[in-house]
């Protein structure tokens, strides 16, 4: 048997290659540079790498050739394992922008008086002499930048995976660094470690389900390529049991990653326990990557069997929206409240997934559900990164003041910061003239035109519940006298360095622009076209 050399489309895969290359360079920097020079090198290396990958993504996106009847653009690269098409490139761009925001937040050192928000020495036990020494010597874990880059690489690969094995490997590459990053907080280390343990055990459990789903679908179709699975779904009428159990198990793995009910239990714990910079990056990045993969798997792989999986997603979407919005009301911690709100947003996104898929079924000027979801992910990402970035600024003597009581009256002491936070919350709530409104409008209309009106009704009801808790939080910031609570302390705003400010300004600009002139980004999403089948 002859060995055939595989063809790798290096040019089209360059964003992925740059990100992984920079991650490996980062590991070498850790190994060979002296400690005091690592921080600057790592920050510069990862930001330059992300910008280069972004430029490469734009270049790849401009160059994509049309496929077939012109509804999709792009090509299948690396022997069918990576699909570089319009939606992939759009998601790559989004993930890279939010990863840059993540690097800016990671690099912030002014808030903790000269050190980063990550543990000085993760191996030193909390409350011991070793930990105090690490902190007085100003030690820093600069390994977080390579970890972030590896996670970004996994996120880029996840929605572009053309077969189930690549999808599984990408899922792990994006998850493993995030488990570690979750456990590296400088303050409240017990919470952070506990969050890492929970995230890891539940994440490994869910990827076990995902993998068994991969095995069953392979058994059904005889191949892992989504294209061949699609052909098998159309042709094969035997072994329906394998197909449906397989779809269910793959769905468990993906719905866990996006935090849909009933797989949402980890979300609040991890969002609260992780360092807030990590939460911001993870909340935006993981959701974008996992929704990209979910859409590709269900539209390309199982699109022919739409009525087999849609009822399941109907129920999950309804439960996710209601439970996310209802539990957010009773939270006493800002990060947990934002976590439950992100669960509700998963439900809204799933509403979009249920919409009309092909452009031929639509009237002029309507969007397909793919475009609606892409746009919603953009608005959600900007508002989430911005909101969590502001959470890092509001502090008291014990670090970040995440208890909601501490935020009372913040609007009077720091009107600017509280105002910007209120704006992000309004965008998450979907008030008109903010980005969130346009996103919600898009996903609701696509779901409605596909006849999913029970889901849309629930979505509107839970949007109203969501508006209630966002607005009552804003009222707390602006119209409640701080009573100080039991500890008699209120939070105040620490002024950040240029890095966090830049991240907040980018998020704010994105949210404002998308709210007032959503057209260009909607056009861009429409221009992305369909998935390549």
């Amino acid at each position: 048997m002859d060995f055939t050399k595989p063809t790798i489309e290096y040019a089209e895969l360059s964003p992925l290659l740059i990100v992984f290359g920079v991650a490996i360079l980062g590991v070498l920097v850790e190994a060979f540079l002296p400690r005091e020079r690592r921080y600057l090198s790592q920050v510069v290396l990862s930001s330059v790498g992300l910008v280069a990958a972004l430029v490469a993504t734009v270049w790849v996106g401009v160059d994509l050739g049309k496929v077939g009847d012109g509804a999709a653009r792009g090509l299948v690269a690396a022997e069918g394992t990576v699909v570089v098409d319009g939606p992939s490139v759009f998601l790559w761009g989004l993930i890279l922008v939010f990863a840059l925001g993540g690097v800016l937040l990671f690099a912030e050192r002014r808030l903790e008086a000269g050190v980063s928000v990550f543990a000085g020495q993760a191996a030193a036990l909390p409350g011991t002499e070793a930990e105090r020494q690490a902190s007085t010597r100003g030690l820093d874990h600069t390994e977080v930048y390579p970890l972030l880059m590896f996670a970004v690489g996994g996120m880029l690969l996840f929605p572009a995976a053309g077969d189930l094995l690549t999808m599984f490997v990408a899922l792990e590459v994006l998850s493993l660094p995030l488990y570690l990053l979750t456990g590296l907080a400088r303050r409240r280390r017990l919470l952070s470690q506990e969050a890492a343990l929970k995230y890891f055990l539940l994440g490994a459990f869910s990827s076990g389900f995902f993998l068994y789903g991969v095995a069953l679908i392979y058994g059904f179709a005889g191949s892992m390529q989504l294209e061949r699975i699609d052909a098998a779904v159309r042709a094969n009428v035997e072994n329906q049991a394998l197909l449906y159990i397989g779809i269910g198990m793959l769905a468990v793995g993906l719905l866990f990653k996006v935090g849909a009910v009933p797989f949402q239990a980890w979300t609040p714990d991890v969002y609260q326990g992780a360092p807030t910079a990590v939460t911001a990056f993870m909340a935006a990045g993981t959701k974008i990557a996992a929704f990209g993969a979910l859409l590709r798997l269900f539209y390309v792989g199982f699109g022919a069997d739409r009525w087999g999986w849609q009822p399941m997603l109907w129920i999950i979407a309804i439960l996710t929206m209601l439970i996310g919005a209802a539990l957010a009301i009773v939270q006493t911690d800002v990060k947990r409240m934002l976590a439950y709100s992100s669960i509700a947003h998963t439900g809204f996104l799933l509403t979009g997934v249920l919409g009309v898929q092909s452009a031929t079924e639509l009237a002029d000027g309507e969007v397909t559900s793919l475009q609606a979801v892409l746009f919603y992910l953009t608005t959600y990402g900007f508002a989430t990164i911005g909101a969590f970035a502001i959470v890092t600024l509001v502090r008291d003597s014990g670090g970040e003041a995440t208890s909601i009581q501490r935020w009372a009256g913040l609007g009077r002491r720091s009107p600017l910061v509280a105002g910007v936070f209120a704006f992000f919350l309004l965008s998450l709530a979907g008030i008109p003239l903010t980005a969130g409104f346009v996103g919600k409008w898009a996903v609701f209309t696509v779901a409605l035109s596909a006849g999913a009106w029970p889901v849309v009704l629930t979505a509107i009801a839970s949007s109203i519940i969501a508006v209630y808790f966002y607005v009552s939080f804003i009222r707390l910031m602006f119209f409640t006298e701080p009573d100080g609570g039991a500890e008699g302390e209120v939070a105040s705003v620490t002024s950040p360095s240029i890095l966090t400010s830049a991240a907040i300004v980018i998020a704010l600009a994105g949210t404002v622009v998308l709210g007032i002139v959503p057209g260009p980004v909607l056009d861009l999403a429409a221009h992305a076209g369909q998935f390549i089948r």
Partner: protein
Amino acid sequence: MDDVTPYIILSSILFTIGCVGVLTRRNAIVVFMCVELMLNACNLALVAFAKQHGNLDGQVAAFFVMVVAAAEVVVGLAIIMTIFRTRRSASVDDASLLKY
């Protein structure tokens, strides 16, 4: 085409044992071992289906799964070790600061 049904049944039994173990055991290490059992059950299913379909995709996938499982062990044991050293316990019930 050989009949691989017994292997698939065995792999589903192993997967179920792993799954029940994750849900019922209290020690983080044992929970983690049960996750590994689930991954190995997947490997068995992949290899059996590869035999049935007469192509190598499933066998190659099994190698990838082994590598991923090894990477997961590195990360997982590091996390479990840290929490054990802090709390002197690897019980998943003791880690209960974050709730509601």
